[in-house]
């Protein structure tokens, strides 16, 4: 392995990163996940932690760009140079840039992650059979609204599993429209547009207005690539047009004619000869996860390795079951040490769904030539009954409602509602950054910030923005603290964190543990179980839970009731 001249490295271990923009090639969730997994490659073998931030200046900025993209090192179109990153330091140092003239995938071809439908965000399965016909790409057949869809199993006729494909008619990304779909036609600079355009931009990204008049409303978003979009050339993102004419000959599929490199291409108008508009047809693409893991190695201070199988070897090769090479481990641990992780888990090159598609928009199942509306499968089985849960992972009062967390789901109860809660919601739908198991949570009454704890990590939500995961060590808790099992906030900017017999007082503003802590729970809160697995504040009283029961304590620290979680808090029959 090699390090940069002067052994450039970060002077702190809690690094932050920010994703400045997205590639149209992949669903933003898949990109987020690829970057998170790429950072995990390095955090698994070092004491480094990586926290994503959504505003402000991070240590590592991540961006996609093409050719001249704002630094002195332009990219070169498709293939060749894939990405670059700067060694640790202030400003642009540490940043990672990815060439968006590449076709970004997970290394094995186009990834068409679906949204909505009933397949919970699964990827398209090509080919698939619909109404007896085979499809190799998304289709709007069977629909009257023109939305492209695909089957997520080989046989839609049999399995009826489907989702909607990336389309500007369904959503946009980035911009200022919160993912709203394009509105066609729209007016821009006095001209009417019936499709996405690159006009008005110098970076080549396709965009659209999300209202009928951009000049008036200034609402816009970027268009996701459809599965048939070309890569690079001079028509990035436009679909192939078949048949097209090239040197007087008609082509009904992608061809390598005219190229010395045998790469497949197509025209994006019906006549290449006349319009000279073209792009490459989708191929295996480059694994964003693998390239990002390599680039982040530079961001952390590693130079290129001479070892062919090492991640930090400069040339790209796809590896199905990626494992960090010993040479990379030695290099990064030379800079930062080995960290607390005993045995790094093996990362995979498969995306972990980070969000579940909502089924709240008006969507209809693709029908067999006639459009019929069928009920949609809800994202969570309503049969899951809070009253059948023996012990919850966490209970917390958030935003005025009591939240009961269990295995990735949560139910809510308000003081006005005296009935048992209905369908649960997914934690990932409301707080996408959180893991499925929450140990405890509280909301600071002043800032309204919400804090969630799971294992030795915690997350801070400010509205929809999240900071974390961060290690509880950052709060000043020692390494022997396995986690926080209970918590509640007070009105004075302090919160109490409980674990078994001990508890700590946290300054919520500075996120530091006050001096004089930990203290013993049974000394200051006498009469409640010292091994409570959950502690929370509800309507001004403290609750200490053990098994199915709670001990309720007044603000004067007197136990005034022992009751059942199931009957007294959940109002189960």
């Amino acid at each position, binding site marked *: 392995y090699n390090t940069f001249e002067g052994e450039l490295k970060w002077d702190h271990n809690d690094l932050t990163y920010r994703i400045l923009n997205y590639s149209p090639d992949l669903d933003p969730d898949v990109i987020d996940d690829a970057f998170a997994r790429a950072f995990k490659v390095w955090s698994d073998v070092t004491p480094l932690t990586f926290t994503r931030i959504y505003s402000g200046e991070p240590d590592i900025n991540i961006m996609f760009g093409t050719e001249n993209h704002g630094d002195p090192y332009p990219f070169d179109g498709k293939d060749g140079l894939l990405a670059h990153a700067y060694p640790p330091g202030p400003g642009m140092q540490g940043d990672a840039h990815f060439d968006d003239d590449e076709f970004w995938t997970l290394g094995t071809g186009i990834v068409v992650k679906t949204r909505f439908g009933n397949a919970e965000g699964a990827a398209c399965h090509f080919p698939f059979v619909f109404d007896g016909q085979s499809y190799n790409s998304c289709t709007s057949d069977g629909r009257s609204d023109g939305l492209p869809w695909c089957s997520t199993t080989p046989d839609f006729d049999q399995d009826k599993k489907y989702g909607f494909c990336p389309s500007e008619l369904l959503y946009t990304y980035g911009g200022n429209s919160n993912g709203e779909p394009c509105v066609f036609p729209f007016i821009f600079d006095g001209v009417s547009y019936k499709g996405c355009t690159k006009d008005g931009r110098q970076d080549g990204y396709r965009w659209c207005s999300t209202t009928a008049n951009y000049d008036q409303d200034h609402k816009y978003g970027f268009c996701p690539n459809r599965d048939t979009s070309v890569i690079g050339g001079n028509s990035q993102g436009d679909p192939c047009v078949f048949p097209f004419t090239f040197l007087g000959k008609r082509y009904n599929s992608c061809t390598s*004619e005219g190229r010395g490199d045998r790469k497949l291409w197509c025209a994006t108008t019906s006549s290449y000869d006349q319009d000279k508009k073209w792009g490459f047809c989708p191929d295996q693409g*480059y694994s964003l996860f693998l390239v990002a893991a390599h680039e982040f190695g530079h961001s952390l201070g590693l130079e290129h390795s*001479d070892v062919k199988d090492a991640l930090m070897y*400069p040339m*790209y090769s796809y590896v199905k079951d990626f494992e960090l090479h010993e040479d990379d481990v030695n290099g990064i641990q030379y800079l930062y040490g080995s960290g607390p992780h005993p045995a790094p888990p093996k990362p995979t090159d498969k995306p972990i769904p980070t969000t579940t598609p909502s089924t709240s928009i008006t969507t209809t199942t693709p029908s067999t030539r006639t459009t019929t509306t069928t009920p949609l499968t809800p994202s969570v089985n309503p049969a899951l009954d809070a009253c059948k849960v023996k012990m919850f992972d966490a209970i917390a009062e958030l935003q005025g409602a009591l939240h009961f967390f269990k295995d990735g789901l949560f139910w809510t109860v308000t003081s006005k509602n005296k009935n048992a809660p209905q369908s649960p919601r997914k934690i990932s739908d409301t707080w996408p950054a959180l893991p499925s198991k929450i140990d405890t949570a509280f909301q600071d009454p002043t800032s309204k910030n919400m804090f969630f704890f799971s294992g030795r990590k915690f997350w801070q939500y400010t509205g929809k923005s999240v900071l974390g995961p961060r290690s509880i060590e950052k709060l000043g808790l020692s390494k022997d603290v396995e986690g926080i099992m209970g918590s509640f906030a007070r009105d004075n900017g302090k919160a109490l964190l409980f674990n078994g017999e001990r508890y700590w007082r946290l300054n919520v503003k500075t996120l530091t543990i006050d001096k004089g802590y930990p203290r013993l729970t049974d000394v200051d809160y006498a009469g409640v179980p010292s091994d409570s697995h959950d502690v929370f504040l509800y309507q001004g009283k403290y609750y200490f839970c053990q098994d199915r029961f709670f001990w309720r304590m007044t603000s004067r620290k007197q136990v005034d009731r022992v009751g059942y979680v199931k009957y007294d808090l959940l109002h189960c029959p």
Partner: protein
Amino acid sequence: APTASKTPVSITFPGEIRKNMTSVEVAEWYLVKFGYLPLQQGSNHHVSLKKALSQMQSKLGLKVTGNLDAETLDAMKTPRCAVPDIGN
């Protein structure tokens, strides 16, 4: 019977960068870009090119010949990280 293929047509596609370079041009571009060859060329260009090729072949684990052989040219055409291998 298969018909004899006609001579393949190769055209310049609009919008492509760094295309239609000769092998030597590709090699020089690569060696400069990734730090094996200084930008300024002197009178002993041939000697320094051979030295740079050897250095590149050694660094990337190729057979060290000092010549622009097929293996070396293939390596130069392989997609890769844009960070230089040598120097800053």
